[in-house]
């Protein structure tokens, strides 16, 4: 299977968030603003998002990289790098 593109990764993140905060409309998430505040994720919710991404994408995100997931844009960038895809085409 080829590496996922930006759209697929964004969908994976929305999927992970939706499992925890079903009331959140992905269209309302501002990609350049901190994610956890926008959708009210506490550390437990956040850990569940990480676990969900692990299940979907098969990557293990270490604690030390949590800072890379601050905003939606940065999270997608980070996941692209981790999944071996290209940041081109944005």
């Amino acid at each position: 299977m080829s590496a996922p593109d930006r759209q697929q990764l964004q969908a994976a993140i929305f999927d992970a968030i939706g499992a925890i905060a079903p009331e959140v409309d992905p269209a309302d998430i501002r990609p350049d603003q901190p994610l956890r505040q926008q959708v009210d994720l506490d550390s437990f919710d956040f850990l569940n998002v990480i676990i969900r991404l692990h299940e979907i994408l098969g990557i293990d995100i270490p604690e030390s990289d949590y800072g890379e997931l601050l905003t939606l844009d940065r999270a997608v960038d980070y996941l692209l790098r981790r999944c071996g895809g290209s940041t081109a085409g944005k």
Partner: protein
Amino acid sequence: MEAGTLVEWRIKPGDAVTRGQVVAVVETQKGAIDVEIWDSGIVDRLVARPGAKIPVGEVLALLRGDGKTAAPPATTPSAIAPTAVTAPVPSAAQSAADRQKISPSARRLAQELGVDLATVQAQTADGVISRADIERAAATAKPAAVAPAAGDWRAQMRKAIAAAMARAKREIPHYYLATDIDVTPLLAWLAAENAKRSVVERLLPAVPLMKAVALALREVPELNGFWIDGAFRPSSAVHLGMAIAMRGGGLVAPAIHDADRKTCDELMAALRDLITRVRGGRLRSSEMADPTVTLTSLGEQGVAQVFGVIYPPQVAIVGLGRIRERPWVTAGTVAVRQVLTASLAADHRVSDGHRGALFLAALDRLLQAPETLAEKA
């Protein structure tokens, strides 16, 4: 809580059930609750129908004693009479042994006014709650008196919280203590520990903190138990009530049973299970019924310190604030350390500030040796 609506049965007549098994789902003002059974046996008959509103303490189903003999009921001597499965009783204060006497009219009025009966106290020597007591309670707990639309569980929950917190502030003489704890060693240990673990095995900082709180409570038992009928009833077990915010508002504090005896991995699993079920609205009756103390953490929202309100009939609530970097002076040197403010609100009828201070000191001491925390079970 005085009634719930039976949502579904998880058992059918003839099923063998064991103590602790989830047998039914009941919708309450605190969300859906999985009802556990307290006896083992064979399901004889399901008495309550799904969709029915059932008062607390009502028979839900009948159970045959051992399942070996299925004697016809008409000839069953009372010695092996069917055991009744009853609707979950919400708190230790309302156990069958010391059932509160409430006049029928007062009970109905409480329902109409949205007054939580668990928060009402009789004003007279006979101890019977009457209409006047309900009216007084409704007047005191104004927010709870505004009856919301029936079936709106969020409003019901708001009412339940309003009633419980109003009672706490009315009846419990709180005292408050707080102390700053250096959690740098804890976080260092946790980071090292998590680095070794896969994402699904990772521990949250809340876990060793819970463990330390539970162990410290063992050292100061006056903070762990219930105030019932004018006396303190200590609990030998530490059932840690975890204040968990619901998405979109509301709060529940279900118990993690025997928190002092669980390993950090077991606590993490229990916390994960609990939070998942809180968010999914699936709590078990026993979890709602019996926390012996409550732990609330508001640090994630950025607050430095929590001044908790005790959940009656408990006698203490431990609050944890945000972990933040602070200048920290040790032996004449200033260093930057990760600091957590731990607070205690406790019932002065049961304990004094000195004992409360011993608890916070014990908590501090335990958190300085996180590796032993992880092992102690």
